[in-house]
């Protein structure tokens, strides 16, 4: 059976004006299938992170057109995009970016509390399941600022998963982790795409990591190669 298209980029163009006018993305067009585990690679400055932030809907200053799950996102307002991200996109960043004054559990619950599709109790239940899945349930009630790097990254992944997003995006999610934790994160992603059918797009510098994904998009000088 032909898999559905999860994400479609059509002639994406992006310019930076600072420090001097510079074209970062040069007419990129590609599609990502639903359930695909994709890695974006390339040298630094090749535009891969820029591309990821456009795909994530956070960066709206671009030319071309972006469609996710059949919904055209180009031209929507910031608040509409925020609501869309909340429901459909999960994020994992290089520097985990948790709210340090909240417990691990609360951090995980925050996107779901915003979405408000479930009751507080259900959300809590679900957050615990994710923590268990990632093997850090005993850290649930600790302040996230007090956790180790690997634990924090797993909390961040749990947070990205809480609303069952169709797409999970990672900006060098393993960039800050040792090889053991990198393997853990990779295994989680692999399971998400194979078992749960979630689409995964990660920017990575790690060639070993990229080699094991379903598809590699390599970029150089703002083009796919």
């Amino acid at each position: 059976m032909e898999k559905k298209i999860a994400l479609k980029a059509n002639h994406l163009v992006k310019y930076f004006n600072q420090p001097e006018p510079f074209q970062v993305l040069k007419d990129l067009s590609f599609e990502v299938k639903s359930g695909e585990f994709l890695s974006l690679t390339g040298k630094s400055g090749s535009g891969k992170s820029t591309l990821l932030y456009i795909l994530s809907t956070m960066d709206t200053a671009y030319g071309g057109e972006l469609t996710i799950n059949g919904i055209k996102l180009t031209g929507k307002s910031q608040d509409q995009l925020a609501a869309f991200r909340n429901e459909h996109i999960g994020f994992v960043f290089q520097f985990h970016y948790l709210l340090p004054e909240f417990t691990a559990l609360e951090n995980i619950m925050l996107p779901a509390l915003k979405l408000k599709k479930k009751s507080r109790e259900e959300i809590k239940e679900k957050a615990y399941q994710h923590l268990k899945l990632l093997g850090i349930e005993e850290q649930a009630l600790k302040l996230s600022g007090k956790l180790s790097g690997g634990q924090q990254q797993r909390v961040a992944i749990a947070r990205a998963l809480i609303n069952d997003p169709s797409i999970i995006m990672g900006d060098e999610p393993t960039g800050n982790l040792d090889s053991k934790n990198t393997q853990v994160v990779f295994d989680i992603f692999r399971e998400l795409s194979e078992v749960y059918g979630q689409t995964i797009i990660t920017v990575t510098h790690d060639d070993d990591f990229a080699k094991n994904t379903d598809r590699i998009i390599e970029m150089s000088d703002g083009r796919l190669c």
Partner: protein
Amino acid sequence: MLNTNYKIAGVYLTAKPRQTIVALLGVTFGISMYVFMISFVTGVNEMTNKLAFTSFAHIRIYNDGPKDNTDLISEKSNETALVNLRNAKVIKYTTGIKNPAELIKLLQHQPEVTGVTPQVNVSVFFRNGGNKINGMLSGVEVDAENRLFTIADYMVSGNWNSLKTQPNGIILGVKLAKSLRVGIDDNVNVLTAEGIMKNLKVIGVFKTNMGSIDGTKAYLNINSTRQMLAKNQSYVTDLQIMVNDYKVTAPLVQRLSTVVPYNTESWQTSNQQMYAQSKLYDMVARAVSFTILLVAGFGIYNIMNMTINEKIKEIAILKAMGYSGFDITVIFLTQALVIGVLGGIIGMLIGFCLGYIVELIPFKMGALDHLPMAYHVKDYLMAFLFGLATTFIAGYMPARKAAKIDPVEIIRS
């Protein structure tokens, strides 16, 4: 959703208690000073007004004499006529108020009038042997006068009510009695401009602490005064009127002046200096307190800006997770408003306590034995609302800034 925003705001507020407390103290200080200053100034104003209204009424109706005839020529002459006018004189005119009983009835039917009393005021010389002092003799209805001016409370010796039973009895201001060198049961001689002279017996001395009153005024029974002046039994020179709110006299004065053919004068007009003074006190107090509040507002603004700069990554991450600009505004505005409300409540309490303590301080001067304070719910509400408005504005600006943060810029840098 809002619940979650409030919860985040709560965590931020409690995570750095020292910052929160500093901001809170700023508002608390502002509000408490505001409440205290206003209480104090209002207390002082009310005290001076209360003292002042022992000697003059809120509104006074009196016969001002005949129309001003100093310029007789311009309206009578034309260019061809030659006018020779010498030594113009005022012809005899009716003094006093005609038909006062009817006027009093009319006044008593006005809704805002709480009391009316007639007076026969005459300017006289008081004499005790060789001692002559110019002053004002007030013929009064004993009970009505006391009801309006509570003059009995200001008696230092003698009894106010004995004016009723002693037609030849006079009550003197304390300074007047001293200048005349008389005391209770001594005699004092009264001489009017018409040359009427009468011997009266001092039956009491009063003290209002208003120098000009205590040094010149004396009270006599209204009927004795009429007798002395050889006037009829309804002769009245002044009607003194008290209203329910002394600040609002203008509408009544305006209404009366169309039907009453005499001068109708409110205390604001006849005592403009006092009126201006109480207004100025009020303005100064409000200006000072407002400045304090403003400073507290800047404090909140600063602290909120600092917090937002510290939390800029977290704001970006919340936005990446799907929190809208509105959510971010709510999160940070809630923090400012919690500080505003808490600071307001604590400030009002401290302001009240401060006022209460200061009121206990002995302050013996004139009629005062402690500092005057007034506690009005209106002033407290005002302070609270001002405080809330200041914190709202001081919180809103940084909160808007936070809402506009571009998450990409923060996360990528």
